[in-house]
């Protein structure tokens, strides 16, 4: 009797358990919907309508972006144009100072950034990064035919670095593991590479951009780089966090350029093989 009464009372309360669960689900969905309303993924729609992709960059960093004859040239500029082509769009470049790039993107002055930018985890609340398109990590440059193919193979060798640079920090760490490794600091990356060319050092550890540029500009020298980078410093494009469609389109176009080999051709054009 009591049990029956309780059951009756339970079901006759203001809302049944089923109704309450439905209500709860409705509230959660409504909250999710409202949260989504704060940010609209509509940049891609506007781009499609106008046929123009607004690209933000700081044109002061050769060979990635630099102004020449009122135009911008470099790997990033070429890549942006190639991506736009791939998407059937026209790339329009807008210049900003390096420190103002993210602000320009946040205030919707451009659709995305491509400016040799590294991925910054701390910015991922407001921005999203594409797949990386270039690795600017430290590289080993060695005389052609050298058997050195990794840092661990430098025991007993002389390693040239740029004084105080990241390569110097990395080499100093390796010297603790390879006691016979001799680290030779030089005032600049080019001078460290010169030391390898002159036979003063067995290898140089320099940033990927400096090392590749040096090799490109001095192709007569009997030097080569180890293809595997020692550290990883990926460059990626940046969009506003809400622009998921644009990000997907950029990644899709980048993937296509990678598959056809066009990305490698662009990199080789500006940074050598």
């Amino acid at each position, binding site marked *: 009797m*009591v049990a029956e*009464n*309780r059951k009756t*009372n*339970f079901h006759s*309360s203001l809302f049944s*358990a089923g109704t309450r669960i439905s209500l709860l689900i409705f509230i959660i969905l409504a909250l999710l919907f409202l949260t989504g309303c704060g940010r609209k993924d509509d940049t891609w729609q506007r781009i499609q309508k106008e046929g123009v992709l607004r690209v933000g960059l*700081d044109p*002061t*960093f050769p060979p990635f972006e630099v102004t020449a004859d009122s135009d911008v040239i470099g790997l990033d500029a070429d890549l942006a144009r190639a991506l736009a082509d791939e998407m059937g769009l026209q790339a329009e470049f807008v210049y900003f*100072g*390096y*420190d103002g790039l993210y602000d320009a993107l946040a205030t919707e002055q451009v659709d995305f950034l491509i400016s*040799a930018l*590294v*991925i*910054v*985890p*701390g*910015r991922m609340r407001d921005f999203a990064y594409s797949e990386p398109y270039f690795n600017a990590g430290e590289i080993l440059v060695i005389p052609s035919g050298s058997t050195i193919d990794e840092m661990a193979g430098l025991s007993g060798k002389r390693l040239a670095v*740029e*004084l*105080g*640079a990241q390569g*110097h*920090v990395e080499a*100093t*760490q390796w010297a603790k593991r390879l006691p016979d490794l001799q680290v030779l*600091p030089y*005032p*600049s990356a080019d001078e460290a590479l010169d030391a390898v060319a002159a036979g003063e050092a067995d290898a140089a550890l320099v*940033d990927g951009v400096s090392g590749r540029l040096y090799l490109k500009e001095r192709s007569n020298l009997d030097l080569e780089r180890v293809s595997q980078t020692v550290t990883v410093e990926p460059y990626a494009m940046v969009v506003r966090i809400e622009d998921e469609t644009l990000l997907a389109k950029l990644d899709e176009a980048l993937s296509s350029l990678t598959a056809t080999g066009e990305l490698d051709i662009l990199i080789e054009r500006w940074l050598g093989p």
Partner: protein
Amino acid sequence: MDYLQNTKTGNGGYRDKGEKVWSRLLGSSARYTRVLARLLLFMILLRLLLPAPILVTIGPQQTVYSDYPITGVHTRLTDEVEEWKIKRTLELVREMGSPWIVEFFPWAYYQGSDGDIAWQHPDQVVNHAHAQGLTIIARLGLTPDWARPPDTPLTYLDEDAYEDFAAFAAAFAARYEGKVDYLVIGNEPNLSYEWGYRPTTAEDYVNLLKVVYPAVKEANPEMQILAGALAPTLEPDGSPWGLNDLQYLTEMYEAGAAPFFDGLAVHAYGLTFPAEADPDPNILNFRRIELVRDVMVVAGDGDKSIFVTETGWNDHPRWTMAVRPGQRIQYTLDALRYAEENWPFVEMMALWAFRYPASTKSYMDYFTLVTPEFVTKPIYDAIKEYTGNGG
């Protein structure tokens, strides 16, 4: 009968319904007990899986050895959570031969609207620094939300809250008597950003000093109050961004600042210039300190010392104000040597910044001497060698 009593008498009815829901979920009370016991066991097992907390002790009292006792660093322990990292950072400072640290202690982080002050973190920093034999210059700033109008930034401090800030500064000075000898009041007040995004005036800042100075001296007469930490800038009168530091300092003296500070904190970055580049009122470089000193002398305040609480060079590959890493090392050593040999009025020079708790992935990382992972950079090793602590 029981049911009627439970459901018809106020909250008892709701309790009863709640029990029924639990009963439906868990079944009989025996099952309920079993579930609870298993949950408890699971929690105990989970707790056992946690690593034991790292034991960090203050350790024996250390002494800093340095051939160049002017050497200092600005640490960034404000955001460092783990105590062992605080200790390790300060050990590295000592081992480098820097007898001084400048550290930021934000009022907004510590004091709630009830007036209580959370001393745990500042205690850790101060006690470890003291044990390492370091002289601490504490920079105080940032206003808690209860002490400023709604929708104002942390850097907003107006006259209504001067007394509250002074009370905090006095409490700080009293608590760390014998361990902290210097307080910097505020930071770069000649910049609008640092003054709550308001037009910045020297008079406002001097009014703050007039309230803070007597309060701190009453709490701890030995505490030295440093004014300023003026930002080097060429902003002209009326600029929304700030005011030229030399003009601002002149106006501070005109507003009667002299009796309300014991020393002047100065920021002096070398930017792209070598350490010994000549000073010029129209450019910003390291030796701008000499122009600041000239203002002090003209104001009849030449007996006071200057404390360079931020200085240094940056070696970011892209930042327009950066130099090459090798230049950064050379300019830094040149600056320490130049100051030691030519500026008897400078007590210390703190390099910005010793180490950040985490990488900023920006040009700011290229100001540091040690990485977040405690890898010392070549500039650290060079300074260590320079102070006689190498090898």
